[in-house]
């Protein structure tokens, strides 16, 4: 079941064609949107596990910007999924940047910007430390974008500038970007400009939502996925639109099409 379960999300993200010479997510920017009723963190965990354990001699490197939880939290979860984050960190394949207690300088104009500029400088250092041929194997993961706004004292413009530069890395170096954001924080606004800017910039949009019918014991939510890269690719069998449901188990996640769960 687990190999089949990976295939549905992998297919939707384009991870099923993972090869040594290719960038794991193909240099794409992936935006995961969730809400209070249904958390999308499990998608991040699944992706990290997939990137780090796909092939034994893989060159994949994950740079994780953690604004939401400490390292111990992710270590505990990934251990249950069969991935030793501590070992991967020692091997230099999992780079954890603890942003929990970091606050951008306050009180001076552009304080938020200077803090985010410093963060971008760190990301660039990590990227440049990799051999040039392996830079496309870097995946930058951000958990989560709304907390970057908090760290930048509410300045969404500075956050968008930072994300723009991260996005530019995907175009110029072929690395990938995965961002988690909370849809319901911005849904009460007349025009959720910040969210729309991010949606426009993303190549793959993953929405993690509860079922329209409410809570269920066997199905924990649904996941429409829009992969613009697959939609635009000629001869693609997959038309880029997917919608499946999921059930989160203790050590894995089960994905299935509606009505197809056995």
């Amino acid at each position: 079941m687990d190999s089949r379960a990976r295939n549905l999300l992998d297919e939707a993200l384009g991870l099923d064609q993972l090869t040594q010479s290719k960038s794991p997510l193909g240099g794409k920017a992936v935006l995961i949107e969730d809400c209070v009723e249904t958390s999308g963190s499990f998608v991040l965990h699944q992706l990290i596990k997939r990137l780090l354990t796909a092939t034994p001699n893989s060159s994949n490197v994950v740079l994780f910007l953690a604004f939401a939880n400490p390292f111990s939290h992710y270590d505990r979860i990934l251990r249950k999924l069969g991935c030793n984050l501590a070992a991967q960190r020692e091997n230099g394949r999992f780079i954890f940047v603890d942003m929990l207690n970091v606050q951008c300088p306050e009180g001076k104009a552009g304080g938020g910007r200077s803090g985010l500029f410093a963060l971008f400088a760190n990301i660039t250092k990590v990227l440049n430390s990799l051999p040039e041929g392996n830079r496309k194997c870097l995946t930058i993961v951000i958990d989560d974008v709304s907390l970057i706004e908090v760290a930048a004292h509410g300045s969404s413009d500075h956050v968008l500038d930072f994300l723009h530069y991260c996005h530019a890395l995907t175009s110029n170096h072929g690395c990938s970007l995965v961002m988690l954001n909370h849809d319901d924080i911005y849904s009460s606004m007349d025009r959720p400009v910040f969210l729309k800017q991010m949606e426009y910039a993303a190549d793959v949009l993953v929405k993690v939502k509860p079922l329209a019918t409410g809570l269920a014991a066997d199905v924990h939510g649904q996941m429409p996925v829009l992969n613009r890269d697959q939609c635009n690719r000629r001869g693609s069998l997959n038309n880029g639109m997917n919608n499946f449901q999921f059930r989160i188990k203790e050590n894995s996640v089960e994905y299935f099409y509606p009505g197809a769960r056995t």
Partner: protein
Amino acid sequence: MRLWTFILLIGCNRIHILDCYTDPLGWKHQLADSGILPSNSSAGACLFQDVKDINKLQSLILELGSGLVGQGKVRFSVAIDSVTEMLRHVPLSKVAALISDLRSHDQISSIFWLLHSDIHDVRVTTSLEYLSSMVASVESLNQSSDGLSGDLGNLSLLEQNFRRGKFHVRFKRRNGRVRVMNEQFHMEESGIKFTSVTVEDGLVSQGLVPKVLFNLELSEKEKLERARVVLPLEHQGNGKPIQIYDGRRSLAPESMGEVSADTSQSNTEECSNGGGEIIYFRDSDDDRPDSDEDPDDDLDI
């Protein structure tokens, strides 16, 4: 669609790219100065690293465009992808001034730009529309679902929306006349195909009727029969006194017999002509008969 900001200058069958995407705020330049990044320039494009300086941007556009076409009578075009990203860094007044200056420049034949209208308020989109002689808008074919926020049943709608849409163009002529054009487009492997709008009415009516398991629409025959139904209190205008049927066929008095017969006869005639009929059955014959007084007697229907 990516929020890139490239400005393309097109002239003499050549394109020159002014890259405002890679380093719009000069961060990479600062990192290069501090030795963290090797100094690098975008291959094949001119890098612009200060998007907030609109005057400098305008000067560079004109300089590069002139370099593209020379000093002769040949003119060049300017394409901006996208103005939405520019508006993040520069106020609307300055962007509008830039567009206005460029469009009135002798060497510039045309200028076109992309704007994501759902990100901006009406004031911004209207201001930029006033500056333009042509506005082309792309809309989804089915506007019922809110992007990916719709439920599972709308997946086919989402798929359709991604490959198809409506293309609406409004031209403003010099004499003030406005011409409007509507087409549908379909993105295929070979390119984008435009077709005229033919089933728009059907699509509109389809969009208004909710999708349920029972039929809410009327066929043509049902519409005709509904139109033929004579309403009981409707003034028929045929000179005869208005007959009100109280539903007591079994208790019809002799005085009313003729009338009832006439009524039933007229009903039969109507039925034989294919007209509609309203049949009213009282709950019980034991009920007290209705009053003969018409409570609406004072109305002139």
